[in-house]
């Protein structure tokens, strides 16, 4: 019986790069589940397939095999996209990249609202919600600034706020502290945990930094495209 709090469920995910004889398998029957309120770290050496797994779970890449369900709804079945694949990426999954990739010509507040401004001019309610999100991340005074006026850590917080604004069920972060110093990196990791617990979303963070593992409920390890047994 499926756990009702299970927001992401992946089973036997496979992924190959290259074609014909040069085909290399980068994900081998990867299965994992993420529950609401849970903050999970994904560790592994370079080339182990962490980022590929994260991008596949984030629907940024297609899988070559396996099944993926988000909120109990299948989005990948037998490696094929199901109906609503693109919509799920926009609505149910938030993604934080290694670099913040903020839009340079938008203010901090508008960057948080980018999923809205793609479609229309933000309403006052939407602006208020974005302000509240920034306040939760300790950025309430910086909404009017431009990205170039922020530090690296502040920019990454804005990127997190941007990913959270559409109220996704799952937040995926690919080495979000790679460009930050240890203190800022630790702050961001604890922020993910706090967000997961407070908003009951599932958070999966790819990281190299073993010093921040105390911020996570669980740690998953990858090697050669396979997921090792979960660490409690």
């Amino acid at each position: 019986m499926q756990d009702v709090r299970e927001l992401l469920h992946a089973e036997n995910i496979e992924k190959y790069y290259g074609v014909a004889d040069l085909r290399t398998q980068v994900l081998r029957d990867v299965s994992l589940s993420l529950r609401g309120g849970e903050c999970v770290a994904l560790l592994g050496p370079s080339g182990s397939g962490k980022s590929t797994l994260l991008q596949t779970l984030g629907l940024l890449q297609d899988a070559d095999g396996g099944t993926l369900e988000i909120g109990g709804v299948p989005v990948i079945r037998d490696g094929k996209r199901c109906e609503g694949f693109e919509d799920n990426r926009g609505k149910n999954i938030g993604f934080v990249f290694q670099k913040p990739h903020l839009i340079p010509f938008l203010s901090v507040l508008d960057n948080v609202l980018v999923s809205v401004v793609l479609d229309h001019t933000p309403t006052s309610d939407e602006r208020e919600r974005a302000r509240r999100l920034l306040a939760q991340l300790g950025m309430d005074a910086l909404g009017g600034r431009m990205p170039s006026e922020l530090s690296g850590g502040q920019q990454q917080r804005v990127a997190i706020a941007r990913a959270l604004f559409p109220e996704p069920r799952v937040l995926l972060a690919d080495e979000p502290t790679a460009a930050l110093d240890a203190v800022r990196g630790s702050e961001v990791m604890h922020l993910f945990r706090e967000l997961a617990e407070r908003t009951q979303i599932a958070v999966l963070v790819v990281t190299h930094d073993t010093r921040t593992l105390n911020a996570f409920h669980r740690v998953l390890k990858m090697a050669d495209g396979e997921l090792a047994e979960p660490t409690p």
Partner: protein
Amino acid sequence: MSLYLSGKDILADGTRVLVTGFGLGLLFTVVLAMGGIYRGMVEDAVAQAAVYAPHAPDEALWVVEADTHGPFAAPSRIDPSWGDRLAGVPGVKSVHAARSAALTLHVEGRLQPLLVVALAIDANAPPSGLQTSELPGIRAGDATLDRSANLPVGTRLSVGSEEVVVRQLAAGRLAPSGDPLLFVGDADFRKLARAGNAASLRDRRPPTANDTVPAFVVTASSSDLPRVEAALRKRPALRVARHAEQQAWMLEGAVEKARKQIGLFRTILAIVSAVILTLIVLQMVGSQQKEIALFRLMGARKIALFRFVFLKAAALVSVGATVAWGASQVAFPRFPRRVIVGTEDYILLVVAAFLLAAFASALAYRSALRVEASTLLAT
């Protein structure tokens, strides 16, 4: 993609949009000028012919030398005595000698000579295409000169020992060559032309005119015109043409080569403008690939992404079209040639510019979509 987002993008990139748009606008201005110069040449050619034509061109026949397309497209020489004979043809209302010659005149108090196209006017029976204020007057030595020569009333113009004095100024009276027209009495015209020929022979230049008449303009009532035309066609020394036919000869002879040159130049400029705009838009989109990749991953629809690219290109061509309009208002009246640009030219420019912007945007959009968004943002 909302206007809000595009507006922010364009404002943030305002200097580049303005400067690049300004450059594009200057290119557009030259494209406009090419068309305007050609139209000015045609207008001037038609206006020159219209000096001799009556207000009702359907009542006019041009009589020129047999086997020629004279007088504007090719040399045509008819003995002046034909004037009286033509007037005697039943049904003929009036006969005007259409004499014109390109002359190089000395301007009193100035070293630089003045090139004009002189037209002979019979002061007692002036051609109906001229305004009363443009008539050179009945006194010998009086002349009317187009304002484009920038000479005041009272200026003395001479060839050798022959001299006329500018008594009136006309507006918009230019030859297809762009030179101002000079209206003088018939006798003065002959003197100037003769002196001009002598000067030409001294300078080893081809003579410009002599005592022969290039063409006669014969008028008759529209009911009599076919009869007069039939009678004149029986004269083997002459060729008869309706006004429209003569105008077509003139445009083919005097303007056709210029039309081809200007048309080719205009086409090249239009292509250059298109290539430059496309490269600019490609470069702009190329520098925003990460933003576009992020929009794609945030779930932006394809039409919205295209609109994002197109609106910036549209802003560029809007600046360009505005600059072209402004520059044409300021610069074209100062051109030595007449440049005629109408509202339809501006509309055509705007439509073409926006189509070009759409084309360049489509190319840039395709190139942006070829990039794998997740790979781009993963770095």
